[in-house]
């Protein structure tokens, strides 16, 4: 990559150097050094190609990263809630706080005073970098991604500055979710945001990240990372609801670390964008920990959704259960590639992995590659995947009640999704997700 002289803000990624990316902002030494190292790594690594197993179905070389304008990390502002956000909030249930991000920059942040008094911290990643640089550095810069994910992860870290930081102290149970809106407005940009969720022992937290944009007329990339950590006995529910407009390509890498007897639920809903890649790794670090990994997607037109998961059992007596369901129509395509890895010492592991796909059209295509890698000898593991179509008998039954073929198919997709939706513990969050799916599917 050549380094050219460019203005401080609006250069392309190809022309950017680290000083441009820093945007003249001061930040704590620990973060600045780690970000600079990430940038070095990003520039040194080659883009992964379709030859690597992890990128076999998604051609990164076709994404024009080099021509995008990176959005530099910026300090938070305090703008009023926009009408679209207020509208969604008005229809959602109770909440403990709201974060609005624009191209990763925190534009609005509020936390219920009562929740703040209980010791919960909600702030921008930039403020966290000032106030808790070590916590942030350890939680983010010491994550070891797989070789095929390293380049994008390094870019995400180099651009770090966008996103929010949620810390729930020992024993504090948040009464309602935090609702974050990740809005992308500028076509042709490359932006990045991080969701940092940390629950100390016995803490309870629920977060919904909603990703949205209009249809954009130029290729636009949104990078997202999440680190979700639960100490002993913590309970965390994390939902990512992605409903970007067309033109957006998004890459989300999520790392879950589950401590002793903690219970962590992640739920990815993918509806929007041209291309969406989601990597979820759950590390069961503590004995008795429990990770539930859920996902739903509905792809139409020529949307392509690619999912990679790892259930990594590093401790004994832990439980993980993955259920990913997708439906596709038109020329939509999707990939599920999942691995259960059980380390040698992780005896009495209980791990499940299921991927089910429903194809509504001749032109749609799903790939499913579930996998196991088990080194312990006393475990219970199962994995399975199916790819099927709607049943003629069900279709005729619904049509005989007046539903058009399209309505009948869409209702069957709802029925297919219901099993997963039903596993979301918080009713308000469940209702919001259901509403977004209804809007996409259209009945």
């Amino acid at each position, binding site marked *: 990559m050549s380094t050219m002289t460019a203005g401080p803000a609006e250069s392309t990624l190809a022309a950017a150097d680290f000083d441009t990316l820093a945007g003249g902002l001061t930040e704590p030494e620990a973060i600045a050094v780690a970000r600079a190292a990430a940038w070095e790594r990003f520039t040194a690594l080659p883009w992964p190609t379709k030859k690597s197993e992890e990128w076999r179905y998604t051609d990164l070389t076709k994404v024009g990263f080099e021509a995008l304008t990176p959005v530099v990390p910026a300090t938070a502002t305090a703008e009023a809630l926009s009408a679209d956000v207020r509208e969604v909030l008005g229809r959602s249930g109770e909440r403990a706080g709201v974060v609005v991000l624009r191209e990763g920059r925190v534009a609005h942040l509020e936390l219920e005073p009562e929740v703040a008094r209980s010791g919960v911290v909600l702030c921008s990643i930039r403020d966290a970098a000032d106030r808790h640089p070590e916590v942030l550095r350890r939680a983010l810069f010491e994550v070891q991604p797989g070789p095929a994910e390293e380049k994008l992860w390094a870019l995400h870290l180099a651009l770090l500055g966008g996103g929010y930081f949620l810390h729930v102290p020992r024993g504090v149970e948040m009464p309602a979710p935090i609702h974050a809106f990740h809005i992308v407005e500028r076509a042709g940009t490359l932006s990045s945001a991080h969701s940092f969720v940390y629950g100390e022992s016995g803490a309870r937290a629920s977060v919904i990240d909603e990703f949205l944009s209009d249809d954009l007329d130029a290729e636009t990339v949104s990078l997202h990372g999440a680190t979700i950590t639960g100490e002993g006995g913590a309970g965390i529910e994390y939902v990512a609801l992605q409903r970007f407009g067309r033109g957006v390509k998004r890459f989300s890498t999520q790392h879950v670390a589950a401590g002793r007897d903690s219970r962590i639920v992640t739920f990815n809903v993918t509806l929007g964008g041209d291309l969406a890649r989601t990597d979820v790794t759950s590390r069961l670090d503590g004995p008795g920990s429990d990770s539930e990994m859920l996902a739903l997607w509905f792809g139409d037109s020529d949307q392509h959704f690619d999912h990679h998961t790892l259930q990594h059992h590093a401790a004994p007596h832990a439980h993980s259960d993955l259920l990913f369901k997708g439906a596709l129509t038109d020329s939509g395509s999707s990939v599920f590639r999942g691995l259960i890895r059980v380390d040698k010492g992780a005896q009495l592991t209980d791990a499940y992995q299921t991927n089910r796909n429903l194809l509504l059209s001749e032109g749609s295509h799903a790939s499913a590659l579930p996998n196991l890698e088990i080194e312990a000898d006393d475990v219970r593991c199962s994995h399975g995947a199916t790819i099927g179509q709607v*049943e*003629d*008998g*069900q279709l*005729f*039954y*619904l*049509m*005989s*009640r*007046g*539903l*058009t*073929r399209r*309505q*009948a198919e869409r*209702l*069957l997709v*709802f*029925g*297919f*999704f*219901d*099993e997963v939706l039903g596993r979301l513990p918080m009713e308000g969050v469940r209702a919001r997700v259901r509403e977004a799916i209804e809007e996409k599917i259209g*009945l």
Partner: protein
Amino acid sequence: MSEPLLSIRGLRAKVEGEDAEILRGVDLDLQRGEVHALMGPNGSGKSTLAKVIAGHPAYEVTAGEILFEGEDVLELEPDERSRAGIFLAFQYPAEIPGVSIANFLRTAVNSRLDEGEEMDVFGFQRTLAEKMEMLKMDPGFATRYVNDGFSGGEKKRNEILQMAVLRPALGVLDETDSGLDIDALKVVARGVNRLSEADEALGVLLITHYKRILNYIQPDIVHVMMAGRIAESGGASLADKLEAEGYDWLQQTAAV
């Protein structure tokens, strides 16, 4: 007499891709407000006729016509026939896991609205509750998944519930009585009678093996189907004769 609600002429049909005809020239006229019973032995084509009327894609009509309110419906899709006013109560209703009865019926009612027309959500809920009460169904039933894990009786009741909510002009009841104990049968029969009382123009084609249900739903006309044709038609007393003598005396007619 005015134009029949349902008029079937010379109807021949077979399973798509197979040679043997199951319907071999069915003729039947059903006037508005009439209840017709269609009886006959196993394999005579009763259920096939029901499915062909509803537009089941597995069957191919090779000759004849089905006129509903004077319009040929053979070219219509199943959903178009339904919205036109034809209702089939299935012998074996499909199970739809994940879709609640309320959601399903709301979608079905919605599909009948003109573009831009808003559904009266409260009105729908009131109607649904009323009809469920009429059929002695627990209110919690509305949130259950359509036919998923239902007993035979619950499935049949659910069919009549749908008919009550959708208010068709013609109800084709395909062995709605089979598999029901006497109490369930009475509830279902009472439900159908109440629909007939509420809508005097409602036409019913009641397909059954047994005379039992005809003790509770009085037919105006009884037809007997044999080998793909209507072999005999008569008044309610024909059912008694069939009960007493079986179908053998009709074999000759059918063999023509």
